């Protein structure tokens, strides 16, 4: 008791000794941006950092709903043209005006940065930006394109004068890091710190912080310790194992929110002789995963409550589809499948597998929150209903290559895998297209369809949805497509990840579905 009091007293005096809240903020990040150049690498940490120094035409709010950014309005003027009206009176950090020229040259630069390991061509391709006047831009496409606003909301606008011709190195040393954003670039030391200061002339709501330092602290316990020691004010990605202890700590407050990331299982729909599905005893078997009853049985055999409560320590949400409630295009009819081991056994028996079969589940062990533990839990749950399941997890550097193209002729290697998907565009068409649409390189569909699910009816429905410009109609079509995929058990969703941020007492953070850690989201109580 005395000991605890002493620690409390020490902490309290430490808190008193430190100066009253200065307007400086230090944030401990779990992952580091790879460049200041906002077009170099289309990666969460980079995009989050870019939001401080730069703006986009359309911004995504904390729920990834679209809000006016550098554009004040956007609408289709005909089937092939979207008109964007730009915000007037916005200035770059170097004092130059923001105009349509900046948008047009950004559109040329974003997909073409040399050595980019993941470019923005995914979002810019097929769209041409045309300047109409200084504050009007037309985006033209070759076919009706309803997702224009979503795609535009991913691209960061740089300056025509200093940004468009600049190299990634010139961004990193600061000379080209000139944006219109709420903060100005101050310094960048890779692996050490990134510092920005408030833009006093920001067009939007001015941040309360005069100066913000981002420190990458990849080791989770060290990140928590840095918060406890007061070296940082905010940390991202609080590990689930520490949440319970931190909740009891008076000097720390936590903010939590559902992410746009669903964790799901993909099954081999394609090969009748699937390499990691065996008859009991190890003999060959005609792939049972192709039968709907078996897929349903597997989904029913998974105790999602146990995964959420035990493995994730309560910090996750049971999933019944591809995105949590509230996102564009989710179905309000789908609920997480109930745990029903008896029903699962009955379905298996009905499908001709009263004694089950043998299966191997593959998963990463360093990519998603508690990923290896989830795979192990699922292995045990399936074994309980008679599907003798082996669990094999590996580092993501090995896993993703094999899962996507480790088999003969660059086909997926595994039969039954644990994966996750974060919907960067914040609506349901992205996972539907990439995970469930038929694998078709020419069309660009099914790039992550590692189960090679293929359903002509679904494809047609999604096609219709993707060419429907009317929002309400498209939303209904996407929900319908989701229902079709889930009823056919194209994939088995288990849970949505929930992200946790920790702040010092007196601060709070507005949790975001896109996992970004933004200084403008940190407020004082």
């Amino acid at each position: 008791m005395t000991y605890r009091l002493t620690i409390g007293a020490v902490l309290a005096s430490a808190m008193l000794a430190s100066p009253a809240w200065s307007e400086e903020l230090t944030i401990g990040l779990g992952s580091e941006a790879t460049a200041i150049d906002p077009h170099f690498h289309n990666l969460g940490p980079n995009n989050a950092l870019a939001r401080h120094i730069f703006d986009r035409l359309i911004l995504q709010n904390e729920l990834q709903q679209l809000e006016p950014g550098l554009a004040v309005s956007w609408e289709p003027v005909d089937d092939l043209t979207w008109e964007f009206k730009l915000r007037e009176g916005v200035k770059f950090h170097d004092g130059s005006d923001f105009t349509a020229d900046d948008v047009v040259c950004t559109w040329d630069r974003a997909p073409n940065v040399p050595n980019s390991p993941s470019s923005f061509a995914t979002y810019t391709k097929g769209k041409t930006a045309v300047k109409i006047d200084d504050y009007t831009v037309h985006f033209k496409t070759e076919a009706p394109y309803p997702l224009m606003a979503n795609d535009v909301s991913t691209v960061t606008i740089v300056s025509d004068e200093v940004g468009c011709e600049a190299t990634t190195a010139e961004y990193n040393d600061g000379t080209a890091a000139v944006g219109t954003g709420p903060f100005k670039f101050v310094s960048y030391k890779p692996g050490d710190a990134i510092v920005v200061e408030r833009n006093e002339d920001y067009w939007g709501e001015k941040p309360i912080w005069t100066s913000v330092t981002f420190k990458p602290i990849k080791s989770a316990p060290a990140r928590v310790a840095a918060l406890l020691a007061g070296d940082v004010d905010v940390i991202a990605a609080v590990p689930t194992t520490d949440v319970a202890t931190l909740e009891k700590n008076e000097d720390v407050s936590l903010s939590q929110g559902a992410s746009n990331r669903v964790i799901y299982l993909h099954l081999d729909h394609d090969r009748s002789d699937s390499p990691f599905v065996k008859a009991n005893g190890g003999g060959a078997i005609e792939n049972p995963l192709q039968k709907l009853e078996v897929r349903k049985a597997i989904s029913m055999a998974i105790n999602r409550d146990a995964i959420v409560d035990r493995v994730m320590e309560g910090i996750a949400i049971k999933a019944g589809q591809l995105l949590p409630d509230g996102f564009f295009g989710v179905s309000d009819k789908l609920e997480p499948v109930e745990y029903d081991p008896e029903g699962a056994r009955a379905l298996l028996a009905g499908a001709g597998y009263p004694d089950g079969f043998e299966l191997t589940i593959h998963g990463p062990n360093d990519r998603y929150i508690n990923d290896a533990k989830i795979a192990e839990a699922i292995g045990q749950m399936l074994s309980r209903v008679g599907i003798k399941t082996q669990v094999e997890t590996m580092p993501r550097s090995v896993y993703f290559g094999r899962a996507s193209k480790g088999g003969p002729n660059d086909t997926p290697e595994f039969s039954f895998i644990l994966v996750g998907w974060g919907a960067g565009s914040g609506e349901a068409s992205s996972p539907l297209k990439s995970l469930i649409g038929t694998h078709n390189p020419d069309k660009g569909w099914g790039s992550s369809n590692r189960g090679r699910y293929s359903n002509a009816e679904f494809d047609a429905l999604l096609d219709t949805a993707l060419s429907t410009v009317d929002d309400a109609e498209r939303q209904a079509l996407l929900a319908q497509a989701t229902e079709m995929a889930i009823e056919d058990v194209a994939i088995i969703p288990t849970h949505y990840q929930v992200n946790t941020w920790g702040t010092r007492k007196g601060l709070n953070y507005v949790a975001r579905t896109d996992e970004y850690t933004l200084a403008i989201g940190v407020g004082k109580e």
Partner: protein
Amino acid sequence: MTAFIIRRLLQAALVVFLMSVIVFFGVNVIGDPVDMLISPDADQAEIARTIQALGLDRPIGEQYLHFLKGVATGDFGKSFIFGEPALKLILHHMPATVELALVSLLMAILLGIPLGLYAGLYPDRKVSKGIIAGSILGFSLPTFWVGLMLIMLFAVVLGWLPSTGRGDTAVFLGIESSLWTRDGLSHLFLPALNLALTNISLVIRLTRAGVREAMHQDYIKFARAKGLSESRVVSVHLMKNILIPIVTVLGLEFGGLLAFSVVTESIFAWPGMGKLLIDSLLQLDRPVVVAYLMIIVLFFVVINLVVDILYSVLDPRVRLKDQGA
């Protein structure tokens, strides 16, 4: 001696070459970096375009030849992740690691040798037994855990030292380092101590063993018989003779400190080379991994050379000849 050094350097070149082959092909076998680096939203055409842009679509042998051509002109290739030259990235992270390794080596010498001497000279005292027990702990506790405990104690509970990162740097004698500022030193202390712990223990044990053995040697008895003072016996006759194994081990350990302080750098978010290596390995950033390991091999060769030269200074009986070393 010149011939000795030239021969050593030639051997080094061969080792570096072999290393590059093993690492280059080895990393390639693990997987494809594009699978991890690319945004999941990218479609197949975009993935193929990126693979081509990074030169990963060509046969691995051809990629290696291309790499060798680059190395001949001092170009180790560009990092897949950062898009910057691999060599530049490594050199950029080097000062932080060097200062950490130097301070930690210094701690090992300044703490290890006196403690070891004491434990060797007065083996029956309680303090000596305490030192030896402590050194066993230093050996056997995992750095990862000790690092976190140090943070908990000094940063969280006592609040004396910062828990993470590198402090302010300043330029002195043309070298930018955090050794020159108070803030820098306070950031440096915990990671350096954590890194030094194993080596302090190692030096304690080596020194103690050396002292215990040498004390019974004839030359010590003779020195005493001559009536030399105890301090002279210890500081001259004893020290000179026990230093050789210590120098060897510290030399090798210094290489290890420079090259593989991965765990400590990760826990303390120290922006050094070790953290760069582990991040690059996890993301299959082959140019950085290959360049890094080639540089490390060079380091080790040079350190070994320095150790050999130090031998001959410490012990006149050792001559620098080709000992098949």
